[in-house]
Each structure stands twice: as C-alpha cells, then as structure tokens.
C-alpha cells in the first residue's frame, strides 16, 4: 500500500477513534477536545477526539471575550510554517475522503481542470478564509452572539462526518431537521459529485484551512526543491500533479499539497523534499544527505 494512503487512513481513524459515539449518537467529551486537529475534521463527528480548527476559530472569535483568536491562528501558523500544505496531502480526513471518491470510476472524469477555470476559482478559498476570520467578529449582535457562518452554511465535512451519523442514531435530532439541513445536504451532494469528477475540488476551491496553510508553502521548513542540474524540464512532474502545479517551475506553489507524486515520478530524481535551511535533503529512497546551498 502507498505510504501516503496508509498515513491518511491511519490519521483519519486515529483522530476519529471514539467508536462508541457512532453507536450511541453521542460525541466525545474528553480533555483531548481542548486541542485542534491539523486537518478539517468536524468536532461534532461522533468519533472525533479533537476540535476542528475552523470551527474552533469561529467559536473563539464569536465569543464576547475575544476578538481574533490568538490560540488558533498561532497553532495554524505553527503547523503552516513547519510543513505548509503537507497537512492537506497527508493528514486531512476530508481530503482523504475526497481522494477515495475520486477513485470511483466515471466516464466523464477529468484528469485536469481547464487552466482558466482553475486560475479563477482557486482564489475563492482565500475569500472564504477572509470571511471565516472576519465575519464572526464583525457580526456580533447586541447579546455578544454570532453565527459560525462557514460551519453553518458551507462546510460539507460537518454534514458528512457529524450530521449524517448523529441523525442516523439520534431520533431527537432527527425531529429538528429543516431547510438548513436540506441546504447542507445539497452542498454535500454537489461536493461528492464534484469529487468523483475532479481531484479534491473542496480543497482546491473552498477550504479556508488549505488556503491558510498554502500561504506558508513558499517558506515552510518542509518544502520541495528542484535540482536544476538534474532537471531536464521534461514536464513529467506537471503531468502527474493532480493539483495542476508545474512543479519544475514552481515547486512550492500555493496549490501544492506535498503528495509527493512528482518526486516519485521524476525520471532524473531532480525533485526532493527538504527540511529547513540546512537543505537536509530527503530522497525518495528514504536516505538523507546534505544538499548544497540554493
């Protein structure tokens, strides 16, 4: 089994290991919920052991006691500066679910999204990120309350991981279903259909967490490096990249989720993942060596 797929599966199951929750329609209430998981994982999923960073950020910012959430922005900046969008490619349960959906055979599947479509819609997630940070602060009512807009109106992960399992096992919640649930189910269905046709559509165009991590891709401690002495510019890396990154030109593009497909497929082994400033190079073979300065 592919190492990345194994890590994705293990991480998704480990962070959602509260099996009793799925059986009884209740969520985990232990102390681990103080801590946020790095990927998008609804804290109302019956199995969730940690908090969702986006939901938590909106909760803190919507509270009367705080403005911008220092804890959450600090935690996400810490993860971002360490590894950029590596989280998206390896540790995000919702990203993994989308990858599984993309495996479903379909005659109209798109290997590549048209460049013009991608070039425009990839910016939508930054707008979503801005709204996630600002809306809870700007729309507090006279009682000091606000709505977690992203979770309530957009997030399909909440419907899939939290809504469906809880409603299946909790009759009280089932009686409260209304228009909002239909809206969210509609969005989930659209996301699922899109994920069958396109590789990780939610991550590409909507996810505010991916948008935040992407801002660190260029400067994160873990980043990709192209050895231009070895690179023949054959374009194989760009061809195999499902996120449509031209790796030999921009190895640390905002869209790169560090899946490592380019490293695996480079015929001259010119692409490598490196840690930090000493350019400690990690070859696909797993062997380490010190690389020269950029």
């Amino acid at each position, binding site marked *: 089994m592919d190492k990345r797929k194994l890590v994705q599966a293990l991480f998704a199951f480990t962070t959602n290991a509260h099996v009793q929750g799925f059986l009884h329609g209740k*969520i*985990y*209430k232990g102390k681990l*919920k*103080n801590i*946020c998981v790095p990927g998008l994982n*609804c*804290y*109302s999923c019956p199995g*969730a052991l*940690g*908090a*969702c960073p986006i*939901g*938590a950020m909106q*909760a*803190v910012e919507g*509270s009367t*006691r*705080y403005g911008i*959430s*220092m*804890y*959450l*922005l*600090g*935690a996400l*900046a*810490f993860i*971002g*500066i*360490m590894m950029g969008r590596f989280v998206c490619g390896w540790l995000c349960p919702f990203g993994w679910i989308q990858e599984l959906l993309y495996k479903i055979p379909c005659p109209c599947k798109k290997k590549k999204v048209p460049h013009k479509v991608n070039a425009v819609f990839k910016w939508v997630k930054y707008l979503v990120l801005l709204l996630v940070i600002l809306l809870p602060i700007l729309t507090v009512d006279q009682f000091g309350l606000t*709505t*977690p807009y992203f*979770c*309530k109106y957009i*997030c399909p992960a*909440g*419907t899939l991981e*939290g*809504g469906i399992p*809880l*409603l299946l096992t909790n009759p009280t*919640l089932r009686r*409260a*279903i*209304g228009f*909002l*649930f239909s809206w*969210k*189910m509609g969005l989930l269905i659209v996301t699922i259909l899109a994920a069958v046709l396109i590789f990780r559509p939610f991550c590409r165009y909507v996810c505010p967490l991916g948008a935040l991590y992407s801002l*660190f891709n260029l*400067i*994160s*401690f873990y980043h990709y490096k192209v050895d231009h002495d070895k690179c023949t510019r054959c374009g194989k890396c760009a061809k195999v990249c499902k996120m449509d990154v031209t790796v030999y030109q921009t190895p640390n593009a905002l869209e790169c989720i560090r899946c490592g497909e380019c490293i695996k497929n480079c015929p001259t082994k010119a692409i490598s993942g490196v840690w*930090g*400033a000493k*350019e400690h190079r990690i070859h696909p073979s797993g062997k380490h060596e010190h690389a020269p*300065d*950029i």
Partner: protein
Amino acid sequence: MKPKLRKSNSIRWGILAAALLMMGIGIMNGEMQTVFEKAVNICLECIGIG
C-alpha cells in the same frame, strides 16, 4: 550560507517564534477553554440543524 537563504531562514524562525507566542497568549487568555466548551457540545449549526 547565501544571503537569500539566510533571509528566508530568518523569516521562518521569526514566524515560528510569533506563532508560538500567539499560541501562548491565546492559551493564557483562556481561549482553550472556549474551544473545549464548543467542542464537547454538539454543534447544531455544523450538522445542519441549528
């Protein structure tokens, strides 16, 4: 080490220090408790009920 590399390295360490500082401030202000209180109750908005 070349100047360009040294500069990007300084930026990395600067952001890392700022991130840790922000986390520390947030934790001391009690934000973790707010996260906990939100996370241990079913978020009706998240699941499409509230």
